[in-house]
């Protein structure tokens, strides 16, 4: 039997398998450690982290929608210092490849976190969140224009020397333009996509269900959108991509790889199957063996025409 290699690489970041959680859906890795060792995953992407701790948005923060859900958490997090002192050691002890998702209200915020994390060798990569739809300042505001996206990525690039990933919003006219701007500004890879802005109305109260009015749509409902964007960006730019959006089984993950993703993130599906990520990892091994393919890398972008 041929040796099966499910390892992959994104923006120079070596991953022992292509599966990792989407930021914000898996806390800091410790929450799901009850079920399995987070070190089994390709990487762990932690909750979006800001300079100062944030309280987040007023509840309710979640609304279920057909084949998906809206969230409006608003980047509640412990802040960068507590992340480093209280959350990072656990991930290090479990030999996780740590990707820190970072967010800010200003370019200076992003630069400050990038500089702080550059000193933390246990953080292998930063995923720059310029696409959170649920905060009033920063987040998506940076990610919907090529010039502002470029400004953030450049400022992080100056301060952070290891792998830099830009997480992009689907709520744009031309995703390829933003992707190019990020790559040209020094991003090593792209995460595609963040949630799709949406809303839900409580017909009994005649008000938006979420106090913040809108939220980010995730889950199977957005998979075709995410897949299309991965495909378009890979085809146009050739950049390394981490695909995310509505993956709930191995076959979904494989579609993303074939559309051009080098790795995948799983978000909402963790909520209804806490073992979904190890299942997808097992799925890759099985698929490669059954199809006599030696490496998952051979499948990246094979569907592009």
């Amino acid at each position, binding site marked *: 039997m041929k040796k099966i290699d499910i390892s992959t690489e994104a923006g120079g970041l070596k991953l022992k398998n292509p599966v990792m959680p989407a930021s*914000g*859906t*898996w*806390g800091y890795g410790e*929450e*799901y450690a*009850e*079920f399995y060792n987070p070190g089994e995953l390709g990487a762990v992407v932690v*909750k979006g982290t800001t300079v100062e701790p944030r*309280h*987040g948005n007023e*509840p*309710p*923060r*979640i*609304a*279920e929608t*057909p*084949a*998906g*859900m809206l*969230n409006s*958490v608003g980047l*509640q997090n412990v802040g960068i210092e507590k992340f480093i002192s209280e959350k990072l050691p656990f991930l290090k002890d479990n030999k996780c490849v740590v990707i820190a998702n970072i967010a800010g209200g200003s370019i200076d915020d992003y630069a400050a976190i990038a500089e702080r994390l550059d000193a933390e060798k246990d953080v292998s990569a930063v995923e720059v969140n310029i696409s959170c739809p649920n905060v009033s300042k920063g987040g998506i505001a940076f990610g919907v224009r090529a010039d502002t996206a470029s400004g953030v990525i450049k400022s992080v690039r100056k301060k952070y020397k290891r792998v830099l990933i830009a997480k992009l919003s689907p709520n744009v006219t031309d995703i390829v333009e933003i992707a190019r701007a990020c790559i040209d500004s020094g991003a090593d890879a792209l995460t595609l996509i963040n949630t799709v802005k949406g809303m839900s109305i409580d017909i009994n109260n005649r008000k938006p269900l979420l106090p913040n009015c809108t939220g980010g749509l995730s*889950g*199977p409902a957005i998979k075709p959108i995410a897949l299309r964007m991965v495909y378009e960006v890979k085809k146009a730019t050739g950049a390394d991509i981490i695909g995310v959006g509505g993956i709930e089984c191995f076959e979904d993950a494989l579609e993303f790889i074939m559309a051009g993703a080098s790795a995948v993130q799983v978000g*909402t599906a*963790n*909520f*209804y199957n*806490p*073992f979904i990520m*190890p*299942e997808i990892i*097992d799925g890759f091994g099985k698929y490669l063996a059954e199809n006599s393919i030696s490496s998952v890398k051979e499948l990246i972008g094979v569907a592009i025409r």
Partner: protein
Amino acid sequence: MNSREKLSSEKIFFGLREVININEIVKGTFLVEISSSAQLSKSEPGQFVYIIPKTQKRTILPRPLCIADADADTVKLIFKVKGKGTLYLSGLSKGDKISVMGPLGKGFQAVKEPVLLAGGGLGAAPLYFLAKKLRNNEKTSLVLGFKNKDEAYFINEFKSVLRNVFVCTDDGSLGSRGNVTGKIGEIIRDEKIICACGPRPMLKSLSAFAGENKMRIFVSLEERMGCGMGACLGCVVKIRAGGKEEYQRVCKEGPVFDGLKVVF
């Protein structure tokens, strides 16, 4: 076969359980009994389980249901039909398999007699489990509040485990007329603790009552929930902690909180 045939953790069961019994105990409110597991048998009063409905309505999220009782054989869950998920659950039949994760959350802890239990509507359910764990003596009293006699349930079950059971209804159609907080005020003796589960306004007024009377109060809260594991920060409530207000997770720090610290 996949190497992860055994999926549960030591503390949390995840997998299929069988419906042993299901009954509509009052209109729209169901008692479902499912098979237990090593983890589920160790459930504590106030904890909940996540049921993952396989509806044909494109729902994806699990539904948190309070545990009304649990032992080595069965787990009793009580729910009211409110939407697509609970409608699906209400249609289950004996022998059906459902996907279950739990027990989850932090229940009623450090509860010692003498204690007052206060349940409003569906909120009575976890108190049954708690009442069973407490001794059947004069030191535990329970007040159950319902809209009217048609919505009242489990009264005989409560009476079989507790001697002092008081019932009140909004319209006086069963027991005395009035609300739970009023009734608690009437029957209170030397109790120093209240354990409560029910609608927010009831928990708010009870917490105010407890504060005025220098009592401790534990309240069980609910909020729209995502992961159930403390990871997504979806189900938060505002809590006073260390001189500040912060959002804490119903699924992790709760669902049972110190009522004096809840920002209602």
